[in-house]
């Protein structure tokens, strides 16, 4: 062997790795530079502004189902769109979870008919394009309802036409704000009691009765506050006053088409996840639980479901993300969520690159936050190997 032999630099791992990274970084940066160069050049050539001042210009169209006037700035139109996207998410996510869990458990039912219907539900819905389901729900279901001048009123609780749905809602009374403050305090108190009972249970082994303590407190405080503050909140049912509907909450038919269609569609995926994760819990677990004389409910609640949850949670969160991204399909039925608003803004001559960047940015913020949390959770759950 030659003394003082050194690895030549072209075979030195550290040099090679450094060079490779520099080359990749240079290539990517060059590509980005070319794109940037093209964008600025093209925009200047076409006389399109490159700043974000267009946000203060009037939007120009009336947004269906909102109180914004056409002269409202683009900024508030986009914010209105984001709010509508949130509304789609808040109504749809619980709905699809409930549907998905019912159908997923139904597929494992011992009842042959229930199992078959559940699997037909899954196999039909998850093999359809979501856009098609949304458009079908709107054109073939919502639009075929009676017109607004002649709506139907099922149970006297709803007023439904092909334009708008009216559902029961709350109406704020005089002492609405103080009541909400009291409820907030009650919920915080309930959370504290939950934590305290858990600690007591872990230290001494006495039964925790967490649900009883915290929900009981919230209900008790709420009831007392409700009586003292003289009905701060009343339930109103929508009813017809001539041609106008009064009371309750209203939503556009398109909103319910999107929520319904996407909740059905996404629930078929959630059902598969639920079924798969229950099946993935080893059989020995529930057999061992039986051997310890746990009842059927206890077996499910304390042995099978906690383990199934661990498996199911990350993919279900993924489906939530998919649902939120799919709400952009509302564009096909004219519901003014953020994508449609952006689309209209571009159609009214606002600069496309900036609008698209804002649109993608608003979805990205949401997705990145969720996916960051999922990754944290995943790291926490991962079984440690070498």
């Amino acid at each position, binding site marked *: 062997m030659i003394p003082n032999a050194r690895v030549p630099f072209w075979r030195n791992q550290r040099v090679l*790795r450094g060079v*490779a*990274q*520099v080359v*990749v*970084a240079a290539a*990517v940066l060059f590509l980005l530079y070319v*794109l940037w160069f*093209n*964008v600025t*050049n*093209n*925009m200047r*050539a076409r006389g399109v502004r490159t700043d974000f001042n267009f946000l203060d210009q009037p939007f120009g169209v009336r947004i269906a189902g909102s109180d914004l006037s056409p002269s409202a700035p683009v900024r508030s139109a986009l914010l209105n769109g984001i709010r509508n996207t949130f509304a789609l998410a808040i109504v749809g996510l619980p709905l699809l979870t409930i549907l998905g869990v019912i159908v997923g458990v139904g597929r494992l*039912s*011992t*009842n*042959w*008919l*229930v199992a078959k*219907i559940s699997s037909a539900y899954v*196999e*039909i819905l998850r*093999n*359809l*394009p*979501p*856009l*098609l389901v949304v*458009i*079908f729900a709107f*054109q*073939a279901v919502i*639009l*075929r309802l009676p017109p607004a001048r002649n709506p139907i009123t099922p149970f006297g609780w709803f007023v439904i036409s092909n334009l708008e749905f009216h559902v029961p809602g709350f109406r704020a009374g005089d002492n609405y704000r103080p009541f909400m403050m009291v409820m907030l305090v009650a919920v915080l108190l309930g959370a504290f009691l939950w934590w305290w009972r858990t600690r007591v249970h872990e230290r001494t082994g006495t039964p925790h009765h967490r649900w009883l303590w915290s929900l009981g407190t919230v209900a008790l405080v709420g009831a007392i506050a409700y009586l003292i503050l003289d009905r701060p909140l009343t339930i109103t049912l929508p009813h017809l006053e001539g041609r106008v509907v009064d009371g309750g909450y209203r939503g556009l038919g398109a909103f319910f088409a999107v929520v319904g269609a996407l909740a059905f569609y996404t629930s078929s995926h959630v059902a598969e996840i639920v079924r798969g994760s229950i099946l993935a819990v080893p059989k020995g677990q529930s057999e061992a639980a039986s051997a310890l004389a746990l009842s059927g409910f206890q077996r499910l609640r304390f042995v099978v479901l906690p383990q199934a949850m661990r498996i199911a949670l990350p993919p279900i969160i993924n489906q939530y993300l998919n649902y939120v*991204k*799919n709400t*952009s*399909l509302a*564009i*096909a039925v004219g519901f003014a969520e953020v*994508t449609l608003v*952006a*689309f209209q803004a*571009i159609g009214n001559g606002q600069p*496309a*690159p900036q609008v*698209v960047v804002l*649109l*993608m940015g608003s*979805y*990205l913020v*949401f*997705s*990145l936050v969720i*996916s960051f949390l999922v990754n944290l959770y995943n790291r926490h759950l991962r079984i440690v*190997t*070498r």
Partner: protein
Amino acid sequence: MTTTASRPVAVLWMRRNLFSTPLNAFLTVVLGAGIVYLAYLLVRFLATSNFEILRVNLALFMVGSFPRAQLWRVVVAMLLLALMAGLAGGMLKAAARERSKEAGIRLAEVRGSRAVVGWLRRFWPLSLLVIAALALTRTLIPTLVVIAAVALLVASRWLGGRLGRIPRRVGWLSVALLPLGAYWILSASGLGWEDWGGFMLNIFLTIAGILFAFPIGVALALGRRSSLPVVRAFSIGYIELIRGVPLITLLLMAVFALGFFLPRDLRPGSVTRVLIVITAFEAAYIAEVVRGGLQSVPRGQSEAAQSLGLPGLKITRLIVLPQALRATIPAMVGQFISLFKDTTLVAIVGLGDVLAASSFANAQPAFNAQGLARITLPFVALAFWAGSFAMSREARRLERRLGIGER
């Protein structure tokens, strides 16, 4: 003999599976009534609806505005693809037979009526679609074409199993050339993919999107697991950026803003733009699928390769990737299905795919404002459902065969 044993089997079966507890009995009765009612609605829909809108526009649904005088090109392309599918299937089967012979296992041969039943069980969704479409045709020609295609499929499958003398590479190469031939037939004489439409466009976008995105996706997946921080950062950035936004926003960008990002003299048509965006979008998702496959390869594999003195690139190419990609086949089919369904989104940005054909048909003077979406949309839905369902079943079959998830 006890009384239960003397009862008919059906009654016993119903007792055990439908009426075992009061709750189950209740569910059975309620859901059974619901199913009967749904079946009645379906029969009434099929019996009383007028399907004229589909009959008149069948070509629009299938190929969009493709010149009607050139439809023979579609037929030839279809036959070529049938030939390819048959040959590939036959060759795969021959390879499997050879492997099992080497391993000393005799594969059970299914023949005759049982084979036909097996095929029907496998392909009934697709058969349903084909029969529904053929029932809407007004001449015999499409039926004859379909029969010819099926015959060609069966014949070439038989042939593919008996190509033993030809070296395997030559065989696969010629199989791979057939779709290129189909593409050439479809695009010759001044027609490009910009002129395609209808269901054909959806299928084309799916296949081309996956094919183009696959190499990029594999590179991104390797990049994400690379030990070089810069490469990893760029890969993660790209993947998370794309996966964080809905496809429709990217398609909007393709139509309205892609022109800004390209040099001024480059003006691709709308199908090309959409294809670029679909490729970029799919690459990120394929990267995640491949990453899953890479994670499933035990670390011992690359450690063993290292101990044999293989250089890094060779370890990836010869040891890790083959095992990883094999494990990703089912997930890749899933990705393929989801892209297939997502191709309907191109209708929103103004391409003439099958969903757009549905709204064109509904806007025709003869069918306008009659609420005929309730007829055209289920037809489109049947096309996508049959394709996706058949593919997902095949994926599951393949998964069982490859024994993925069992080792």
